[in-house]
């Protein structure tokens, strides 16, 4: 039997102390929930929640050639980034398949921070090293950093209480360094929940101090520590993809409906040729959100999707949306069927349940 890595984030002991249920996720021991997924989900929708994201990877690409090189590695256009701003992007294999979806920030003229998925960190780092060219240096700094996401409508109040009321917070997709205690933390205005929020990165040794300060100060604003369970239901309501479920090396960003983050006007990046062809001929399948027609069992990954009696695809993400109290999900379905309003059936334990293909996002604030 092979040994499964069980890595702990610098906040692991805090999760245990708070009574979290711990699961193994991408090689990391992570909290799936502290009290209840639904409660934590609602805290983020109504007030504010804090998530440990220390498991995510941080890679630094640096050097005079870094910008040009990253543009041959990533789908989005790094030229568009001013210092202190970031963009969502993809790293593809030669077949156009998705190795990872990530955020790249320009943190200096010739220095970039890549925040990658936990389970893909080593693979992405090895891939980038293998494709490295002169004038660029790449480092895996994941072990040096901890991070939290603070998300919800009361996040700005909380950040003002935490950093001082005169602090200038970064606008959407920007990243700034702020003073916290005697140390610097990087605060990026981004997230994975559909709410206003930030992701904060700090030295691993500062993790506990920052986490506890945010929880303590956050009491005034109804903060809750939130686990991966709520992170998943929140992102699914927004139709944000999860790598490993909705994205994989067998799927490209056009099929996933994320062509917006691909700049085909760039002359060259790995996977580009395949994406150009996919765009010309149209993808064979498309990722679509759907909503169940009736109250019933939640849709789950790998359930088959039918239109009339024809099998047209497979669910990749599904749950009961805590905001809607209704079954929702995303599925890859063959393109001729992938239209908003199409009536489909989801097969659950041998029985078909009606659903309908919807527009993104599945949940909108009223």
């Amino acid at each position, binding site marked *: 039997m092979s040994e499964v890595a069980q890595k702990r984030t610098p906040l692991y002991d805090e999760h245990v102390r708070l009574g979290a*249920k711990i699961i193994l996720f991408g090689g990391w021991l992570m909290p799936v929930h502290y009290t209840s*997924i*639904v409660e934590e989900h609602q805290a983020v929708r109504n007030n504010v929640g804090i998530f440990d994201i220390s498991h995510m990877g941080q890679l630094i690409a640096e050097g005079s050639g870094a910008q040009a090189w990253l543009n041959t590695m990533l789908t989005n256009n790094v030229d568009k980034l001013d210092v202190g701003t970031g963009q969502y992007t993809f790293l593809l294999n030669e077949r156009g398949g998705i190795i990872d979806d990530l955020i790249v920030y320009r943190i200096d003229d010739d220095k970039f921070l890549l925040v990658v998925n936990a389970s893909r960190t080593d693979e992405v780092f090895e891939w980038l090293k293998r494709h490295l060219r002169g004038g660029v240096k790449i480092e895996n700094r994941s072990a040096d950093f901890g991070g939290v996401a603070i998300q919800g409508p009361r996040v700005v109040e909380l950040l003002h209480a935490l950093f001082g009321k005169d602090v200038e917070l970064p606008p959407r997709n920007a990243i700034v360094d702020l003073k916290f205690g005697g140390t610097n933390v990087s605060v990026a205005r981004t997230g994975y929940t559909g709410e206003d929020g930030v992701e904060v990165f700090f030295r691993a040794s500062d993790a506990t101090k920052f986490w506890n300060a945010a929880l303590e100060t956050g009491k005034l604003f109804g903060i809750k520590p939130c686990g991966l*369970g709520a992170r998943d239901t929140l992102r699914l309501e927004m139709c944000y993809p999860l790598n490993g479920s909705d994205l994989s090396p067998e799927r490209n960003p056009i099929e996933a409906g994320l062509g917006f983050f691909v700049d085909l006007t760039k002359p060259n990046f790995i996977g580009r040729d395949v994406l150009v062809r996919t765009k010309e001929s149209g993808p064979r399948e498309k990722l679509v959100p759907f909503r169940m027609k009736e109250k019933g069992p*939640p849709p789950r990954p790998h359930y088959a999707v039918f239109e009339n009696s024809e099998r047209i695809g497979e669910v990749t993400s599904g*749950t*009961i949306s805590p905001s809607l109290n209704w079954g929702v999900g995303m599925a890859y379905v063959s393109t001729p069927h992938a239209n908003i309003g199409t009536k489909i059936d989801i097969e659950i334990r041998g029985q078909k349940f009606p659903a309908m293909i919807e527009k993104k996002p599945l949940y909108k604030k009223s």
Partner: protein
Amino acid sequence: MNVPDDLLYTESHEWIRRESENVRVGITDHAQSELTDVVYVELPKVDRQANAKEAIAVVESVKAASDIYAPVKGTVVEVNKALEADPGLLNREPYGQGWIFVLKLDNAEDLKQLKDAEGYRKQIG
């Protein structure tokens, strides 16, 4: 964690309450707290016959679907329809209004195979 002394238990976290020739079955407080947020219960059909350890119901939380097993051999004589409208009963009252089904016992001797409260407490630590 609440483990009432007057019930029997399975390794798969069902509780069993003897009611003369029948047993009423649900999931334990420990099980509901592990699952959290039950959002759907698929009940067995009345009159269905089941062997011990046969999966006959499904409890779904936000995160996952879990099979519920017949603790002993028997026939389903009653199911808790209230769970269809309010699956959260399983979280709120696991030993009360959150019961799942009633089995008519095939052989009352089979109950000897089940754990008592002490044995179940040991299992869940």
